[in-house]
């Protein structure tokens, strides 16, 4: 294996041979194709950031208090103004008959007549201040974090969703980390060869359970069983979702931790065993400390996987956007919010853009988690190979 890591000698062999036109063209072609991965990472970032940019820049200006446009002014008003007034995209606007537009204007007039008056109606709810800080809306006793995108005054405070995502991910990690690391130590250090060859494929199979199936199991079976056993109030809550999420994360943490533990050179454990320590002593005081950065990376990558998981939390959290750190309250995560609400939003509207803001945040968080995890693993492997001190 060693010879593959540094520049293999057949590569230098090849550099001198064959330089026909086809050869060169193919080499360029292969090279260009391999850039696709970089291209797609950039495209993902660009296209998600692009849709959320107006929110970041604060250029979404759409107050619900507006000058009404009377129905008979349809022909005299410029199209741009009508499109903004009726929340229509250019395509939609073009595809509509005159009668449809008149009908829409009438509906809009009625809507405006019933629009709430008071201080709330004039607020630009997509400003950062309202996305992140508590605000005392009229009718509330105290400032609060409210996510209520479908209401007359659309409230987009993302704090309840951030808390929901963090809460379920942390529960998942609390549940998954001890089990996955324990199993990794057992399989890589203590178990006999025969058992090892059985358990690894079985955990790989577990990684193959689709998340929608785990979500289904949490929703239909676990939620009811846990509620009957412990008798708490809301059937779907952060705990149920967290445990199901933990089941999805266990194979991830297990395989990375197991890989880190196995990459500790055998000479380490041989030396410890030769000095008379038991298998368990060797594992816990020689191999585990040497692989510790890898274990840390496994936890970080597990966190990235947990916070990005969608179907399990969409089905098992109950999806109530409450600010609460209680494990037994229903909760709503970033991913579930995107999944549940995007289909109903107006393309290019403020709700649509806020959901892309959530996507950008999610992309950023998982990007960081992956970066940290990969760097740590890379450094660990190099150190264990003796390349850096």
């Amino acid at each position: 294996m060693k010879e593959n890591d540094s520049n293999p000698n057949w590569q230098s062999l090849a550099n001198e041979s064959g330089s026909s036109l086809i050869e060169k063209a193919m080499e360029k072609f292969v090279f260009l194709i391999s850039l696709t991965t970089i291209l797609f990472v950039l495209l993902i970032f660009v296209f998600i950031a692009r849709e959320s940019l107006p929110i970041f820049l604060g250029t979404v200006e759409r107050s619900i208090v507006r000058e009404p446009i009377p129905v008979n002014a349809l022909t005299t008003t410029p199209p741009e103004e009508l499109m903004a007034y009726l929340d229509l995209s250019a395509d939609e606007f073009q595809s509509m008959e005159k009668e449809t537009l008149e009908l829409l204007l009438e509906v809009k007039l009625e809507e405006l007549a019933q629009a709430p008056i008071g201080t709330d109606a004039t607020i630009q709810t997509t400003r950062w201040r309202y996305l992140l800080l508590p605000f005392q809306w009229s009718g509330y006793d105290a400032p609060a974090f409210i996510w209520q995108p479908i209401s007359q005054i659309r409230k987009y405070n993302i704090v309840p969703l951030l808390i929901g995502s963090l809460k379920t991910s942390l529960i998942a990690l609390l549940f998954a980390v001890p089990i996955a690391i324990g199993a990794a130590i057992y399989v890589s250090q203590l178990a006999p060869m025969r058992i090892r060859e059985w358990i690894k494929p079985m955990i790989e199979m577990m990684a193959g359970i689709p998340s929608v199936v785990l979500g289904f199991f949490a929703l239909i079976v676990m939620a009811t069983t846990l509620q009957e056993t412990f008798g708490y109030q809301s059937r779907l809550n952060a705990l149920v979702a967290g445990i199901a999420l933990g089941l999805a994360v266990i194979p991830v943490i297990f395989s990375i931790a197991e890989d880190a533990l196995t990459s500790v050179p055998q000479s380490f454990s041989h030396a410890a065993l030769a000095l008379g320590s038991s298998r368990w002593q060797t594992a816990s005081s020689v191999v585990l400390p040497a692989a510790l950065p890898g274990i840390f990376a496994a936890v970080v990558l597990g966190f990235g996987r947990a916070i990005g998981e969608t179907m399990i939390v969409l089905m098992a959290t109950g999806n109530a956007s409450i600010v609460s750190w209680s494990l037994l309250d229903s909760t709503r995560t970033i991913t579930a919010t995107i999944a549940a609400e995007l289909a109903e939003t107006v393309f290019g509207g403020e709700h649509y853009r806020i959901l892309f803001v959530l996507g950008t945040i999610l992309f950023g968080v998982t990007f960081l988690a992956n970066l940290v995890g990969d760097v740590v693993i890379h450094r660990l492997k190099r150190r264990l190979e003796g390349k850096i001190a």
Partner: protein
Amino acid sequence: MAFATAIILAFAAVILSNILWQGWEAFSWRFITSRADQNMFDSQQAGVLQMIAGTSARVVLMTIFVMPIGVITAIYLTEYARKDSLLTNLIQSAVNNLAGVPSIVFGLFGLGFFVNFIGGNLDLILRPEQAAPYWRNPALIWASLTLAVMTLPVVIVSTEEALKAIPPGLREASMALGATRLETVIRIVIPQALPGIMTGGVLAVGRAAGEVAPILFTGAAYYMSGYPSHLTDQFMDLGYHIFILSTQSPDIEGTRSILYATVITLLLLTFTLNLLTILMRARIRTKLRTFH
């Protein structure tokens, strides 16, 4: 430590036995070969043939998109790229990064890029006179492309593994006989790595078959009477159907049996694929052992 391992296996056993126990009765040949025609919530007549067709169609299309790009990238990385150059590292970290992007973000990307951007521009170019969007709709092709981007790292990583496992001596021998690098890649490296490359493909299909989040906005349909017949059709999907049956059923007790049977169908599909990769890998490993 053995205890922790036992907990994991116990959880897996509980989940699988519960699903098999409750779903076995409703799971029948009739169930997987008939369509949910009138009412998909009717436990007497329900079938999953449309969903099997939709899920199969999207993974087959995805495989067609992802395999060439994934395999060629892996060939570049192992056969051509200079190790530890900046660009190689950049491609490697892009692969790692892509593997960690949450599936719902792929869904957003699929909607923003494939459906709205590519689809919207296709409408402008190919059908400039029609106002109603044709390409710019959730569709089979957009869902497959989104899944292809998602599974790209799976294919790249396993193909790389397969290529690295080929003894360098084979390449040296080929070049010593006067073969060019391209000839060596096509005649020696790819045939030798073929089982490993196929394993990567099956692994990607297994991963994609159960994914729901990326196809929520890019092509999955709540209900369709027939099968998808065009690239621009929407499709019904096994995983999405499980989601619908568990959260939007009008009578959760009444539809419980078909829900469980649908879960069994999806699990059978993904487990068969996973088992296949595990077996293929084991075979490759024993073959390589005799090689060295």
